[in-house]
């Protein structure tokens, strides 16, 4: 199973925690909202991605398992 990042755009409030914790995959636009460079999470970033998901104050970030 591959892990993919998913953002609930309605929930997302632009707090920016995800970009702090996972800069390899997430940056912020000019208004502070996340831009996902690649939604597929490589294995070596898996723990970091899970931490980012847990840290989102509005629970807008999720990891989804996708069949390869």
């Amino acid at each position, binding site marked *: 199973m591959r892990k993919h990042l998913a*953002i*609930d*755009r*309605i*929930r*997302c*409030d*632009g707090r920016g925690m995800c970009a702090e914790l996972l800069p390899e995959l997430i940056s912020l*636009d*000019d*208004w*502070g*909202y996340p*831009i996902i460079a690649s939604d597929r999470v490589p294995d070596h970033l898996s723990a970091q991605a899970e931490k980012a998901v847990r840290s989102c104050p509005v629970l807008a970030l999720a990891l989804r398992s996708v069949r390869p």
Partner: protein
Amino acid sequence: MSRLRLLSGPDPAAGSEALNVHVQRFGPLPAVGPGLFDAIERSGLTGRGGAAFPVAKKWRAVSAAGGGGALIVNGAEGEPQSFKDRTLMSSRPHLVLDGALLAARAVRASSVVMYIGEEHRAAQVTMARAVAERTEHELRHARLVLAPARYVAGESSAAVKLLNAGIASPTTRPPSPHEGDGGRLPTLVQNVETLAQVALIARYGADWFRSAGRRGAAGTILVTVAGAVTSPGVLEVEAGISVREVLELAGGATQQLRAVLLGGYFGSWVDASSAWDLPLDASMLRERGLTLGCGVVGFLPVTGCGVCETARIMEYLASESSAQCGPCFFGLRALATTSGWIAQGIADPSDLARLERWSREVRGRGACHHPDGAVGLLQSALTAFATEYQSHPAHLGSQVA
């Protein structure tokens, strides 16, 4: 006026077709069986609200999820330049109701909701009167719900949210309305033209439906022709006909043309020189990176200004954001403001670069496709009017496309 199937018969401008005339012309409505799904599938019919989603696939998904939710007959028609849905509702209400009845029975909908734009008064009156003429149980209990006059109100998840929570704002997908999710019933949201096409397919079959259409496209489509043409308005044309043919059907151009806006405000500007042979068909246009949208074809004359037109449309689309998703709310506002500066001739070169970067960044970052539609339009303008964007004098407020 070109009127082939949906608009054949009495002049649509003469008003609503009464039930007895409708039945006389089309005969009784056939019973719904499993064959209806197959016929719709073989016809290749796709949704006519703008997204061109395959109709049989959506109906099957609703059925597979157990059915039992509402059927929303979508006549919101929030696209400012589109008139085809209200024209159809005002002139052929019983074709729409036939399609609604077939859909409601096919997916076992618990109720039928007529969802009509609050500003489309004639369509509301006509549809309400037509419902009163019908004796079928499903239609006798149909409700009329007014869609707020907002661009996003016709988006299917927004329609469902209005029914459930009183506010017409899109919701996060998945699940789409046609997918059941946990305790929630699947809702079929289908555009009025699509339903009217189903009413004909159920009677005459898929082969008949496919007997119209050019270059491999199937059926007929309703289009709204706007801008610098002799006879702007709604036409029914064979799917796959070219932009040039549509222009001829609308009586030709009143001036030399600069560009064509294909697909409405979520569509694309195409330079006039490369527009003429484009086919009016959802899948053929998609292959070319374009969209049929809800069928608006706008003709911009050389005396108009694509930069100013685009600034005006971006301003509108920014103000029509449902303000739920940051990239859409802030991004479209910034794009509209900067587009306006360029139109007013008060921008500096970095503004154009920013416009290009923001257009790329905003795409795909909303719960619905509102931001995607808006930046798609802007990006097409940056290509079609590249010269004008580089050196635009101040003349904001030029006229229409």
